[in-house]
Each structure stands twice: as structure tokens, then as C-alpha cells.
């Protein structure tokens, strides 16, 4: 840990000479890795969380999305243990996390632990509701979360340094260099986060024991303009983190979890007058180590290395018709303490179409087939249409078939893995209404979804636990999103809100799934006046069941949490910002899992330098 710290400090010093020679800031042209997110999301909801929202919520991706999206999270207290997402009432394995266009859900367990993604590492994070398997593959059932790095061309040289210090000895540091010329753009982020996380439980003699964590990482995103027609892009990141798992009772066996992830993506883009071709190669490495008893050095582990080759060809037939064909091949090698060395190859072909029929009507459609010898892969498809009868109103309809493939654990776990599993598959349809007028965007979307062949580990006759395709789930609900920006003179207001009504039932028992609230709402207001800024963000979470038979005796109560912060910018050309933040300002008592309380009111001081 000390070595890691030293490395980080060394890195900062290295940057000092660079800081001195900063350049004037020119207009920039942003480079993105995830083109489909923009091109093929017109008939679905996308929430884009920009840099200022990310910087205010730099603790973990779970916290960011808890307060700024309709996704529900459960975790063992603040920032502790595994943070599992439930999007539109689905399971943690039915939300895809997409890094610069590449699905990075774990091959081992099929999900992304939202406590192992550092918000600090990205320039933009988007949340796309509903099916996306045609584009993003496995797990994009409830929706997908997109992590983007955005280097830019144009002469610029920006440095930003953020430091946060707060309650429970929580420290967060982030350095970002954003450098560009006409031909070259690079963006480097280094971060280090740690916390003792030993907060007192409200109204209890206990505290969060064994909740400490740290994580650090470096993210690089770069683009080089070889010619006016050719670009080379590189995205890379390394994440190294360790979390202790907090104890349910003080004498529990102490455990911890280490994650090491490295991701590399190289892309060559060739742009013609009517076409764009992208050749991509990616190498992903994921590794975890689980220490089941800290008194011993023994640990269980799994490692998966994945190589992906992808060719993406987009053709603009005429200004109204755009087609995109993608072929993709991925080869994953996994091994671990409970998985023998295993190999899995998956090939896929995707065809996407976008067609503008008139100024009022456009539609999009997609189809994807995967081929693998590991399981039978269903044909995936999606189609959506948008009708905009008035400039302020549009209606969108979208339907899709999506899936979640069995994981290495599901298929190959040495004691009980089931090689005969099918993917989980889902059909869904949604209809959305969007209103837009003078800086206000408001949408209401109703959806319906059926998921079948849900994989569940059950006690079996050949091993203690055995996964089977057993459950069927029916979900439906409403998602409402609000985004408003208003200026009154030099007073700026940005208001965001989300509301989700979610019914997600096991078809056999007709019970609501556990840890899926019927109601969840978020609201935030950001205010700026000259050099002063203030923000309030809040979360309301309805009651949740914790028992599959919906026995209300064990329900977790509804709760509301409010965070508030103020900031002031000093300096003229360079900016020095000092901020102060109060989390859980109302000192609410709440938990997202049984007997896993969150802290009461707590504080952060933040210092930001933009040079």
C-alpha cells in the first residue's frame, strides 16, 4: 500500500514541469469509443452524467447511480462489500457495464460490482434503460451503464487535481491531464481512494467493523489522427483494489476481497465519404482473490483473460439511412481455485439500421446472433420507432429480445457447475413520451418485460449446490426522468429528477422479488452564481422485501437521504475550488440490506485545482 502511495506521489511530481507550460485552450473535438450509444439509442432513455455530477459523487459508482439514476443498489453499508444493481427490477447480472463500448461484466460471476468501479476514472457516465443485448451483448436486460473516456483534439493542456478528505478517514485523490493538439489527444487519470470506513451505526453501540477499503488506478484514453481519414485510438485502464467485508456481528470471521483488472482497447478508424470502418482489438484481464479468513494467508481466486477482435462497418446510404454491421470474436481463458482451466470462444454478427422516414418519424432496428459451443444462443433483436408530431413532444416505442449468458462459475464450478445451462432470455417492450421545452426535458416511459430461464443455484442431488434454469420473472413499471436548466441573470439552476415504479414478480409465486422497491426517486438541484456553487441531491427509496415469500415482518423501511454541498472558486485564469459537503444531512437511519446500517450525517472537504 505504501509503495502504491509513493508511486502516486511520484507521478504527481512528474507532472509539475508540464504544469508550467500550459497552452491556451482551443475548441476541441471529442473522441468517443462507444459510437452506438449515440447512434442507436434514440428510442430509449439515456441519462448522461457529466463531469460536474461525477466530481460531486466521486466515492463509488454505486453511490453515484443511487442518487442519479433509477437503479436500485444494495450493499453491506456505505461503500462496503459488494454493491449489486437492480435495474427495472432485474438481478445484478442483468445490468451490463460497458467500458468505451466493451462489455466488462465479470466472466466469472456475470456482474459488475459497482463498488469496484471508481467514478474518478471517467469523463462521462451514461445510463441506458432497457434492452441492449443486440449492441452490448450479455446482461443488457434491465439496462446498461456506460463508462466513457473522452480525449479530444485541438490545442489544449489542462491539469486538474482533486483531493477530498472526510469522515471515517476517507481520502480521495485524483489527477487528470488532458492534452491535445490538432493531431493528437490524450487524457490520463490517476486516482487513489481509501477509507477506514469505520463509521458508528446510528443509535447503536456498534460500528462498521472490517469495512476498510482502498483502490487505485490509472486510466488512459488517447487518439491520434494519422490522416484526415485515419485515426488510431487507445483506451487503457488498470484497477487495483482491496475491500474488507464488514461484519454482520463483531465476532464474525473477517474476510476481504482483492480485485485486479486491466483493460486495453486499440481501435483503428477509417472514415470515408459514406462509410466509417473501425477495427478494434481488446485485451481484458480480471482477477479476484477472496480471503475467507484473515487469520490465514489462504485465498480462493479466479482469473479470466479475454481477447476480443471486432470489426465495425457503418455505411451512410443516404442522409436518412444509416446501416452498421459488426462482427465480433472473443476468446476467454479462465481458471481459478474452484474452476479448472477453461476456454470459451464466442463469435457474433450484428446488423443495425437507422432510418429517418420523415422529419417526424424515424426508426431503428437491430439483429444479432452469437455462435458458441458452450450453450445455445438465441437470436437477439430490437426495433424502435420515434414519432415527433410536435417540436416539444415525441413518443417512442421499443421492443427487444435480450439475454444473459451463463458465467464461468455457472458452467464450470468444480462442485456443481452445470455445463448444460441455457442463457437467461428476456422479451421486453416499452413506450415512452418525451416533452422538451425551453431547457426542460421530461419523459415518462412504461415498460413490460418477461425473463425466462433465470439461473439459480439450488441444492441438488449431485452436489451441495447446482445452478439450473428455473425461474421466470415478469416485470413492469414506469420510469420518469426530468432534466431542467434555467438561468436567471447570472443565477444558474440545473434540476434533475428520476422516479421509478417497479413491479418485478416471480411468475410461479407471484411475489415481488426481494430487494426491488416499488418506488424509488431521486432529485437534485445544482445552483451557481458567479464563483459560488451549491448543490443538493436526494434519494427516496420505498420499502423493500427481504424475503421471497414477501413476509412483511422483515421489510426494510422506506428512507430518504439528502446530501448537500457548497463550493467557491478562487483564482482568475486558474481555478482553485474549495468545497464542503454534508452527506446524509438529515441524519436518516437507513439500510439497503438487512442489518447493514449506513452512517449518519458525515462530512467532506474538497479541494480542486484546475491549471
Amino acid at each position, binding site marked *: 500500500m505504501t509503495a502504491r502511495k509513493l508511486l502516486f506521489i511520484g507521478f504527481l511530481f512528474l507532472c509539475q514541469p508540464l504544469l508550467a507550460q500550459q497552452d491556451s485552450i482551443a475548441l476541441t473535438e471529442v473522441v468517443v469509443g462507444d459510437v452506438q450509444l449515440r447512434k442507436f439509442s434514440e428510442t430509449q432513455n439515456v441519462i448522461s452524467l457529466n463531469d460536474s455530477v461525477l466530481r460531486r459523487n466521486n466515492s463509488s459508482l454505486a453511490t453515484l447511480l443511487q442518487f442519479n439514476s433509477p437503479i436500485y443498489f444494495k450493499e453491506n453499508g456505505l461503500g462496503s462489500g459488494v454493491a449489486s444493481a437492480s435495474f427495472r427490477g432485474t438481478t445484478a447480472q442483468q445490468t451490463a457495464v460497458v467500458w468505451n463500448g466493451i462489455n466488462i461484466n465479470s466472466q466469472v460471476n456475470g456482474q459488475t460490482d459497482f463498488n469496484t468501479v471508481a467514478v474518478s476514472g471517467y469523463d462521462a457516465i451514461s445510463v441506458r434503460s432497457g434492452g441492449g443485448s443486440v449492441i452490448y451483448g450479455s446482461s443488457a436486460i434491465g439496462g446498461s451503464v456506460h463508462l466513457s473516456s473522452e480525449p479530444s483534439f485541438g490545442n489544449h493542456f489542462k491539469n486538474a487535481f482533486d483531493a477530498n478528505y472526510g469522515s471515517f478517514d476517507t481520502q480521495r485523490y485524483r489527477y487528470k491531464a488532458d492534452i491535445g493538439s490538432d493531431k493528437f489527444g490524450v487524457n490520463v487519470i490517476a486516482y487513489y481512494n481509501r477509507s477506514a470506513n469505520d463509521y458508528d451505526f446510528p443509535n*447503536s*453501540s*456498534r460500528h462498521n467493523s472490517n469495512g476498510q477499503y482502498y483502490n487505485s488506478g490509472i486510466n488512459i484514453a488517447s487518439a491520434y489522427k494519422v490522416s484526415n481519414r485515419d485515426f488510431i485510438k487507445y483506451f487503457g485502464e488498470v484497477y487495483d483494489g482491496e475491500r474488507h467485508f464488514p461484519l*454482520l*456481528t*463483531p*465476532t*464474525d*470471521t473477517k474476510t476481504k476481497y482483492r480485485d485486479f483488472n486491466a483493460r486495453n482497447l486499440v481501435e483503428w478508424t477509417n472514415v470515408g465519404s459514406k462509410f466509417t470502418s473501425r477495427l478494434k482489438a481488446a485485451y481484458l484481464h480480471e482477477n479476484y482473490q477472496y480471503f*475467507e*479468513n484473515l*487469520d*490465514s494467508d*489462504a485465498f*480462493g481466486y479466479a482469473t479470466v483473460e479475454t481477447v476480443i477482435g471486432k470489426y465495425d462497418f457503418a455505411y451512410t446510404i443516404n442522409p436518412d439511412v444509416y446501416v452498421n454491421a459488426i462482427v465480433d470474436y472473443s476468446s476467454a481463458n479462465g481458471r481459478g481455485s474452484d474452476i479448472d482451466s477453461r476456454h470459451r470462444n464466442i463469435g457474433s454478427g450484428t446488423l443495425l439500421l437507422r432510418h429517418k422516414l420523415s422529419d417526424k418519424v424515424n426508426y431503428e432496428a437491430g439483429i444479432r446472433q452469437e455462435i458458441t459451443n458452450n450453450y445455445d444462443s438465441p437470436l437477439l433483436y430490437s426495433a424502435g420507432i420515434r414519432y415527433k408530431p410536435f417540436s416539444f413532444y415525441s413518443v417512442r416505442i421499443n421492443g427487444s429480445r435480450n439475454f444473459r449468458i451463463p458465467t464461468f462459475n455457472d458452467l464450470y464450478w468444480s462442485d456443481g457447475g452445470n455445463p448444460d445451462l441455457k442463457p437467461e432470455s428476456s422479451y421486453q417492450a416499452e413506450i415512452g413520451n418525451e416533452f422538451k421545452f425551453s431547457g426542460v426535458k421530461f419523459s415518462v416511459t412504461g415498460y413490460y418485460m418477461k425473463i425466462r430461464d433465470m439461473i*439459480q443455484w*439450488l*441444492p*441438488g*442431488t*449431485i*452436489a*451441495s449446490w447446482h445452478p439450473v434454469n428455473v425461474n421466470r420473472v415478469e416485470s413492469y413499471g414506469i420510469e420518469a426522468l426530468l432534466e431542467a436548466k434555467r438561468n436567471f441573470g447570472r443565477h444558474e439552476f440545473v434540476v434533475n429528477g428520476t422516479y421509478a415504479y417497479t413491479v418485478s414478480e416471480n411468475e410461479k409465486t407471484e411475489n415481488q422479488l*426481494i430487494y426491488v422497491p416499488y418506488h424509488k426517486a431521486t432529485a437534485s438541484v445544482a445552483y451557481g452564481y458567479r464563483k459560488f456553487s451549491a448543490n443538493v441531491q436526494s434519494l427516496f427509496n420505498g420499502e423493500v422485501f*427481504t*424475503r*421471497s*415469500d414477501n*413476509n412483511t415482518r422483515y421489510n426494510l423501511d422506506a428512507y430518504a437521504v439528502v446530501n448537500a454541498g457548497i463550493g467557491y472558486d478562487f483564482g482568475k485564469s486558474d481555478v482553485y475550488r474549495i468545497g464542503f459537503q454534508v452527506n446524509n444531512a438529515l441524519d436518516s437511519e437507513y439500510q439497503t440490506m*438487512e*442489518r447493514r446500517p449506513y452512517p449518519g450525517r458525515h462530512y467532506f472537504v474538497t479541494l480542486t485545482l484546475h491549471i
Partner: protein
Amino acid sequence: MKFNKLFLTAIAGSLFLASCNSDDDSNAPLGSYDNGVLVLNEGGLGTVTYISDDMQTVQQDIFSAVNGADSDIGAYTQSIFFADNRAFIISNGSNKITVVNRYTFEKVGEITTSLTVPRYGVVYDGKAYVTNSNTFESSTDDFITVINLNTLAVETTIPVNNQAERLIEENGKLYVSGGFYGAGHVVTVINTSNNQIVTTIEVGEAPNSLEERDGMLYVLCGSWSGASKLVKIQLSNNQIAGEVTFPDTMGNAQNLDIDGGLAYFTVGPKIYKINVGATSVTDTAFIETGSDSDYIGYGFAVEDGRIYISEAAEDFTSDGKIFIYAENNGALLDEIPVGLGPNGFYFN
């Protein structure tokens, strides 16, 4: 403190009268949770359900009711053993033994040292002997914690060098079954006078429950695959005196409980009854519970003319329930919802 049903029914109607009797009346309840069955629910966080002998009073989570919600008996409570008026509740998730008055359930102490995934306990000569699984990876690091019952201090630990699960004490010796989630194959014999292993007896795949009758140790072996069998060990010489192999259709037999001359056990949702001395077993169930949960038989006991069997919810995220049958004719007497993962019955 065992009462038969008739007697209880009689005193239930004349509770006032009974309470007017002199204090030394041994039939007077010694606390709110006397004269009933304690069902241990492993959790999540463990709880204990109390069911009165007349099955009319059911109270969930009696420990919290008595000691407050801030106090707990730990995660994944595995079993309970008793010493006089005290009950020792073992939590394998929290490495803790909570000591309560068995009749009032007031907490009187706890043991939190020298326990690593503790499982089962027995009491002999002022000491408690508690098995510990220790790490799950290793099958040779299991041990027994020896606890002084007066001070609740840990005196020593005994390495078992094999899996150590259920145990009984007989003539100062501990008989420790080594069946653990379908694995293990020995019974380890330990002399309590010097805490040394006397011998290990190879019994076959997964010895999961054991009982003693008339100088004979009966060990039920059953695992995910292969036939189940009942092994008899002569305690005088620790030699196998015989074994009865069950038909193939009766794999993974569990929960041996001997009552009088009859041995009861379960195979999936079925309860079987054989003569202790039987030399062969046919697949004829005494009771078919009809449960479709794979966790029927998660707890099982035969006591005072009744057969108790518990069913944990298949997904382990709902409360379980118990079924109570009459021992004489197998009639279902009651079905009662309890807590999460009911795994054992204890009798006050």
C-alpha cells in the same frame, strides 16, 4: 423436563391452580420458555422459535424479545447444547457461543475465543466440547474447543486431524462424526481424560449423524452419490460390529434419531422407521411429508411421542416451517411457520 401431551393439556386448563402450588413443585414452569420446543433457525442472523408443548403458543425470535434487538446470537446458528439450566447456542458464522438461561432465554454469557466456525457441542464432567470446522478448504484442521462450564473460559483445543461435526459423549470418550457436506469418512474417538485421539474408525462416505444405544454406536452414512448405510460400532472395542446397507433408492439418508428400540431417519421428504437391530432395510417410508423443498429434513427430532421435521425454504430467503407428526401412527399433528433455515429441535 419432559411432559406428555395429555398432562400438558391438563395443566394448560388449570394454569392458575398450578401456579398456586408450592415453589418446589417440579412441574411449575421455570420460565416463559419452559414446557415447549425450541426451534433453532440458522439465519442470516440466527433466531430461536418457541412452541409450547400444546402447540398453541408460537413465539418467533425469543432471544431478541428477551434481550433486545441490539443483541444477537450470531450468524448461521448451527446447534444448541445444554448444561443444567443453561443453553449454549453455537453460531458458526460469528464464531460465538451465546449462553442463555434455557427457560427464560436471558443472556448470561458468551464465548468468543478459540472458536472458528464452531458446529456442535456436548457436555461432560464440567466441560463443554465444541467441534470447529475451521477453514473450509482444509479437512484436517478441524478441532475441538474445551470450555470450562463454571468460568466459560476456554481451557484448550484438541486437533482432530479429520472433519469434526456432530459428536456424542459416552463413558468419558467423545465420538466425533466426520461427515461434512457429503464428504468425510471417519468417526474419531477422543479420550477426555487426556484429550488424545484414541482411534479413528473408517465408516464410509459422509457419516452425518450418530446415536448410542446399549453399548453400541450407530452411525448413519449418506452422501450425494452411493448407497446410504447404518454402521454399528461396538463401544467396548471400537470395532465395527456390522452394517446395514440401504437400497439404492435411499441415497443421502440423514438425521438418525433412536427412540426406544426404533431408529428414525430421513431420505429427502420421507421419514423412515426401522428396528434398531434390523439387519436389512426396505424402501418403505413411515411418513411421506409431501414437501417439494430440497431442504425438507434440515432439522429432525423424535421426542415424547412426536416426530418433528423442518423444511427450510428452497431459496433460503423465506422463513421455513416445521411439521409435527404423531410417533405412533404418523398422523400430521401440526404445521407451524418458524424462522429462516430451521435446522434443529431442542426440548424444554
